[in-house]
């Protein structure tokens, strides 16, 4: 991982960096696994329909929820990598110090947004749980809060990620970016 190569100026162990590594395995794994199961569910449905002419009533709904899981965990991983799409035109014009200050301000602003949705996302999950709501089409008799729970979890983790990036900038004077850039492996 990238932070192994970074010099640690103070000589202290980079605990925040170590946490980043552990978290990125976790989010990446969850996002990738959600995507794998999503593909598996849709494929099984195609085979069942094409070969045996039967359809699983719940498969489409489950696939949709898995897509949402893929999205939020994938977005969390992208947050960790500082790989979200953004306009860098103006920040690129800044000098090094000003640029880092601007990046910290941006990261903190994003952290506020993520924290708000972690909190209200938790509220949403609580509401659904107390009302005993089940998933939309009710072909899948599973409480919807199980699927919705990705919102508070992912946003909470995003908040942590954004704050870790701030720490990283303060410590190493640069924005953390992993080698696995978001753009397709080229």
């Amino acid at each position, binding site marked *: 991982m990238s932070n192994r190569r970074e010099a640690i100026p103070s000589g202290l162990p980079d605990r925040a960096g170590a946490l980043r590594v552990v978290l990125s395995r976790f989010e990446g794994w969850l996002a990738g696994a959600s995507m794998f199961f999503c593909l598996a569910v849709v494929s099984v449905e195609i085979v069942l329909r094409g070969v045996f002419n039967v359809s699983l009533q719940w498969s489409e709904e489950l696939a949709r929820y898995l897509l949402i899981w893929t*999205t939020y965990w994938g977005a969390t991983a992208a947050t960790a990598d500082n790989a979200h799409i953004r306009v860098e035109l103006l920040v690129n014009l800044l000098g090094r110090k000003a640029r880092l200050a601007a990046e910290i301000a941006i990261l903190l602003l994003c952290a506020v947004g993520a924290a708000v949705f972690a909190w209200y996302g938790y509220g949403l999950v609580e509401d659904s749980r107390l009302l005993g709501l089940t998933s939309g089409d009710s072909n899948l008799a599973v409480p919807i809060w199980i699927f919705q729970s990705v919102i508070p979890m992912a946003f909470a983790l995003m908040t942590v990620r954004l704050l870790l990036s701030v720490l990283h900038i303060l410590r190493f004077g640069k924005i953390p970016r992993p080698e696995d850039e978001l753009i397709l492996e080229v």
Partner: protein
Amino acid sequence: MATFLTIVMIVLLMVGVPVPFALMLTGIGAVLTFGSTSLTTAAQAQFANLDSFVLLAIPFFILAANVMVRGKLAEYLFDVMHAIARPVAGGAAVGGAIASALFSAMSGSSVASAAALGRVTIPQLDRLGYPRVFSTGLMAAGGALGNLIPPSIVFVVYAAMAQVSVADLFIAGTIPGIMLAGMLALISWYFAKKNGWNPPERFSFSLLWTSFVRAAPALLMIFIILGGIYSGWFTPTEAAAVSAIYGIFVGLFVYRTLTLRDLPDIFVQSSKITGSMLFILATSVFIGMLATMAGIPEAIFAQVRAYELSAWQFLLLINVILLVLGTFLDGLTILVVLTPILLPSVKALGIDLIHFAIILTLNIEIAGITPPVGMNLFVISAVSKTPLDVVFRGSILFTAVMIIGLIIVTYVPGLSLLAL
């Protein structure tokens, strides 16, 4: 207040706040000021905005693209098209343009097309004497066909937002896509002939045959995806799943460019790309909210009425605005921000929603190849190790070609709608 929030959003985007967070922060601001809905509802709305079977096509197309970028499919496709185009001047560039169109017919992403083909063709074009300023521009523009030629991620996102059929969009994009590929091929032929790059070579049937056999699994994939969608055998989502599985199968067992151990990593990478794209779509729900609260779509339509704009004048104006926005914003952001705002006016002016989608998509293609911010230019520069300023200069000619294409597609709706 709504005007203020709109300005806040633009400022947040411009100072470099990542797009989904800029949209989220604006949404929080809108909820707090207007108070007509709660933040809990806003959290729910994000979730609901993604709850669509149509959108499932996106991760699968990204997965398929990621598999193909790793494999040698792009190289084999280029070899076949080059073998066919050998007898004309600029045969390799013409082959590269056509191969871009074919790769686009397997991949839903223009960045993937540019990356995969740019990497294999640009070194070959170097060898035949094409300057980088030409070859990088060509391959960036060729990659941009990726969104117009089905399958296309942009179409899937638009279909989910505008509630139109993905299959219709896929059909509508085909002829404009082929037309643009033809224009790129024509330009390649013209410049190669004029400058004496890559003179005609002797046609060789054996070369064509061997390259065809190698490329056959790739060509079969195009047949499966497009044939499946056009015949109604698969929904676009299912076609995407089939293409991902077929791509993995071919990579593992036919071309052997993949091993089972690569797969977890491919899934993780693809899910990150999916996450960053669909997160923007999830948070775009706030644009819709803000626009509705502030009456922005109505205000725009009132202006359209006030100036008595006809459909063609409106489209001209939209094209100009999109071209300007496209120089610094990426295509997906343009798509999710503008679609909800513009659709009411589009409907009221009697413009076909499918035709409008094709115009919007073509603008997004152009956004990808216009400096200073153009995803395809960055990718081409990275894969071919060409300085960015050379790629930027190379993009000028091809942007001009694409704009001519845009004008034709805008004012000849039949190109998009005839096949429906």
